[in-house]
């Protein structure tokens, strides 16, 4: 098993114009672990991802990635170890889906055969074979999203089969996806984590998150209310306090992961 932490957050906090967006949060992420972040709208989930990657300036605390402070990485080097998909993508030009996925290969020296193999694999994983003949701008929302997921997946597959010490951050990657594609991708994320990849995943669908994640971090109004296994976090009381929902928790008969039923 992998035990060394890939990412460590030590009481990181974020402030925007004297308003606290994120109260001090600390956690470790080990290689091969999937951490799910949940919380209501505006809880600070995207800010947390931004704070981990220095996209959002920290007021205090530090982030250690791969044994050194994250700001000590050069952007070029970091791109080979950390891939992230922000919530919104602005691409308005008629690239082909293939060209978009190929952008994920730019951190590496060009290697035609490997690039082609990785891209084909990512196309297969994200079920994009049927979209390749249309320009990106004419894809549906879900197809665009799968195309972007394929791009970040292509960014990590180098050298192939070595994913320990690498990290993938995904902010609402499933917001436009149907359940079939969600399930297929969750399965793929699990396979990647078995190969050592650490993943941080933000999802609105609590049940999907509970199936995907090894641990959950629950955020509300910028504060971490708890971090633990899905069974520890998904309690009716905690869900009531954060989401104001009345819920009963059962478990998935096959996987044993908790399942939230709204009452």
């Amino acid at each position, binding site marked *: 098993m992998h035990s060394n932490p890939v990412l460590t957050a030590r009481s990181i906090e974020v402030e925007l114009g004297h308003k606290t967006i994120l109260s001090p949060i600390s956690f470790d992420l080990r290689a091969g672990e999937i951490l799910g972040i949940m919380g209501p709208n505006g809880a600070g989930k995207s800010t947390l991802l931004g704070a981990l990657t220095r996209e959002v300036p920290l007021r205090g605390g530090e982030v250690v990635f791969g044994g050194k402070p994250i700001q000590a990485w050069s*952007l070029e080097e970091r791109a080979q170890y*950390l891939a992230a998909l922000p919530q*919104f993508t602005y691409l308005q*030009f*008629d690239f082909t889906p293939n060209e978009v996925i190929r952008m994920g290969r730019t951190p590496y020296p060009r290697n035609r055969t490997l690039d082609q193999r990785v891209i084909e694999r990512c196309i297969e994983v994200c079920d994009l074979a049927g979209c390749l003949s*249309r320009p990106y701008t004419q894809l549906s929302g879900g197809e665009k999203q799968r195309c972007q997921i394929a791009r970040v997946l292509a*960014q990590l597959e180098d050298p192939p089969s070595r994913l320990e010490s690498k990290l993938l951050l995904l902010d609402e990657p499933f917001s436009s996806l149907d359940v079939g594609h969600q399930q297929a991708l969750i399965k793929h994320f699990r396979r990647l984590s078995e190969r050592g990849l650490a993943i941080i995943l933000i999802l609105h669908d609590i049940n999907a998150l509970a199936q995907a994640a090894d641990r959950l971090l629950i955020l509300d109004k910028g504060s971490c209310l708890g971090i633990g296994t899905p069974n520890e976090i998904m309690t009716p009381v905690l869900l009531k306090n954060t989401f104001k929902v009345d819920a009963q928790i059962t478990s998935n008969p096959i996987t044993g992961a908790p399942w939230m039923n709204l009452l």
Partner: protein
Amino acid sequence: MLTFKSPEAVYLALGLSLIGTSLVYLTQGAFAIPFTGVIDTLWTAEANSDLTRTIVWDIRLPRLALASLTGAVLGLSGAVMQSLFRNPLADPSLIGVTAGASLGASLAIFLTSSQLYSAHSSLIVLSGGAFCGGLLACLLVYLLAKSATGFSVSTMLLAGIAVTAFTGSIGNVLEFFVDNTALRRISLWRMGGLDAATVMQVYTLLIPATVLAVVSWRMRMALNLMLLGDSHARFLGVHVIRVRLVLISAVALGVSTSVAMAGTMAFVGLMAPHFVRLILGPDNITLIPASALMGALLLTASDLVARVIIAPSEIPAGVVTALLGVPFFLFLLRRHRNAL
């Protein structure tokens, strides 16, 4: 639109069209020179009458060189700017860079009117003033149009209108305060388009043009990645702020110098990259060189039309590019209206 044409074939076609247009350009004008006469003059120094030689070497060739170089700078600037602003409607003249450069040049003439200049140092003063004005306008529009979620097309176009109107009125006010010599020089410069082009102007534009070409070619992949979004590009290893500052400065330098040397040629920067994208797609790796060629071709052809359409008199080439460009811009506005 998906296209599968080979970039090399497109470069070749554009290059051959440019050479063809240039040859026609040299034969046509107030004084028609037969094709063989042009070739003879170009190939052998002494083969023709002095008149033909003077017209080809001293009048038409510098003008042709200035037109194609200006066109290349504008086409390239348009391509870079559309990628930087993540927006297919960006154009140096639409967002006020040319207006800023124009005011900067006028101010430079005004501020230095008491001094006497050689022809060359006055070109440098003009370019310097134009560069400062163009860079300021470019940064202003960029900062106004940028928001947390990207770029607003409408803000960008409106900011461009505001900058153009503002610099225009400052320019008018300026004319009240300058003395006669400076006024004469300002209006002479304003009238000067491509006619009366000199080799010196071509050389002065050649340096910024080279800088722009080298910088944008080196950053072609970063430009592609920045189309995804700033964070996306950083996650792929791009120093977004550095790339953007360098490219904005290079574009402002190129466009401003072209304005100082050849006047305002509207819409070339808008049209050239669009035509290229229709053929080759949006990849900056092919867009950048092809847009430079396309811009050169567009402006050379426009200037050819401008010179022959009411020969022996002529109209400014900027009028021809605007006549072509305005309908094209309206068509694009309609096509991209969802993005506004």
